[in-house]
């Protein structure tokens, strides 16, 4: 008997919903079959905790006396430039922003010790941040300079808003050249010195609902240690890629845009992150609950690392040149074993996404639901699906 989200919520409110993590669901389906598992289990929780560059936070600072119009001016938080292209006192901190005087990659590889991701972490941790701003001054907003400490507890809104998180599967990065390279996939040693991956695999949200059948716009989620929502499909959402027979894409595919009140999030799950020679980013903790509406969903949520295949890409040439070729294919069980064999060579693997973090998120979300602190939502609108024809385009450079 298929269930509805409303029925599951009734069970949650009564305190008798059966909630398990995506890891626990594997054994349940193996032992009981998907049909029976769909009757037994109401919700499967997922999680992921990895660097997600398209992340940011916007803040409404409140008005100073006399007032200043930051929009169109320049604003820094702890020396990191933030976006000031909205109204008078709305600013946006982008995770990858870095101080103007950071040497960047002039001393290669750049260290990138502090940037937007760290500002967001410090903000959510309740630390004071130094704001320095200059504006052009208007009749209604006469002030031209502002220097002050700000704190998350004093500002009006502080909202985490990430245009692209939770990639559904990702490349494995290797280096075929004879020089070490520094990438957003970490440090890659020459001649296949290591292979780095970045996905929670069997715990990853979009790999447990590969066709986006239960989640969509409006879905309530775990975000940064608090509650957030899927606000849209993420940028570069690419649902139309080729899939294996279990529905899983073997290349990066779907993505999520997410939003939530930063004031109820925690530093534990929003971490400023440094990628040597590459830059600064934010590591985001995110978890999605999946209502087990029927046998089909039960089957999806039982996905195992060995079923999830991904492509291995050379980041010394194919990736920067935008060539589509892959060096090979591998599954997450192989990656997690610590070594893979590639072109006849044993290659040690490294991860960027934290599996213990993903597991803790899925477990936390499970506890929230069991304690009736978190109810499921029905999506307001679906994400573009595998049959939608929606694709991810490149940029054609042209002269005007």
């Amino acid at each position, binding site marked *: 008997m298929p269930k509805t989200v409303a029925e599951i919520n009734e069970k949650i409110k009564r305190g008798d919903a059966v909630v398990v993590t995506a890891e626990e669901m594997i054994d349940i389906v193996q032992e009981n079959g998907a049909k029976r598992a769909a009757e037994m289990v109401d919700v499967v929780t997922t999680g992921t*905790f990895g660097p997600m560059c398209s992340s940011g936070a916007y803040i409404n600072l409140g008005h100073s006396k006399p007032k200043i119009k930051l929009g169109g001016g320049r604003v820094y938080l702890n020396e990191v430039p933030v976006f000031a292209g909205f109204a008078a006192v709305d600013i946006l901190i982008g995770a990858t922003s870095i101080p103007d005087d950071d040497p960047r990659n002039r001393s290669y590889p750049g260290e990138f010790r502090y940037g937007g991701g760290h500002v967001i972490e410090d903000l959510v941790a309740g630390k004071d941040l130094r704001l320095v701003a200059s504006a052009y001054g208007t009749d209604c907003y006469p002030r031209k300079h502002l220097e002050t400490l700000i704190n998350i507890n004093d500002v009006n809104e502080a909202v985490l808003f990430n245009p692209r998180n939770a990639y559904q599967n990702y490349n494995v990065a290797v280096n075929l050249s004879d020089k070490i390279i520094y990438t957003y996939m970490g440090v890659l*040693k020459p001649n296949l010195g*290591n*292979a780095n991956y970045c996905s929670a695999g069997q715990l990853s949200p979009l790999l447990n609902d590969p066709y986006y059948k239960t989640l969509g716009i409006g879905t309530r989620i775990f975000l940064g240690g608090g509650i957030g929502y899927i606000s849209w499909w993420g940028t570069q959402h690419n649902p139309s890629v080729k899939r294996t027979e279990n529905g899983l894409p073997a290349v990066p595919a779907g993505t999520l845009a997410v939003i939530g009140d930063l004031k109820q999030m925690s530093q534990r799950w929003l971490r400023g992150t440094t990628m*040597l020679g590459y830059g600064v980013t934010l590591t985001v903790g995110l978890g999605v609950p999946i209502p087990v509406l029927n046998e089909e969903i039960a089957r999806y949520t039982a996905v195992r690392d060995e079923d999830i295949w991904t492509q291995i890409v050379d980041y010394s040439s194919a990736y920067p040149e935008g060539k589509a070729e892959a060096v090979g294919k591998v599954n997450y069980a192989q990656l997690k074993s610590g070594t893979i064999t590639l072109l006849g060579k044993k290659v*040690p*693997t*490294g991860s960027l996404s934290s599996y*213990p973090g993903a597991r803790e998120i899925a477990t936390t979300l499970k506890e929230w639901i069991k304690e009736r602190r978190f109810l499921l939502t029905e999506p307001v609108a679906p994400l573009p699906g595998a049959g939608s024809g929606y694709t991810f385009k490149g940029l054609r450079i042209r002269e005007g």
Partner: protein
Amino acid sequence: MISRKLVLSFPPSLVDKLIIYRLVKEHDLEFNILKAAVTQNEEGMLIMELTGEKENYERGINYLKETGVHIQPLSKDVIFVEEKCTSCGACVPQCPTAAFVVEPVSRKILFYEERCIACEICVKVCPYKAMKMRW
């Protein structure tokens, strides 16, 4: 035979070269300097591997201590700040001595500091600054 990697710190008043010379000459030890530096407060710092017969080694160490040199085993110089570690695993394939191990069940990263030779690679590679130098 004994072979240990040590961190020696010399107060500003001591001339390190002479001490090492005597250590080698008079106590019949072999050494290999892995790193030498002067810290912010003008202390000399030397990371070296000291090798020799057990008896000689112990006499040599006593000699160093008598001259006022502070000695500690090397591994303690790279510190694992557990609260900052996310157990991502980015350090695992980078460490030349396999000092990081993924615990197979929890998948948490364990740091075996006695394997560490203080090459500092993980200090640069760790995205969360969970590995840091004492100096």
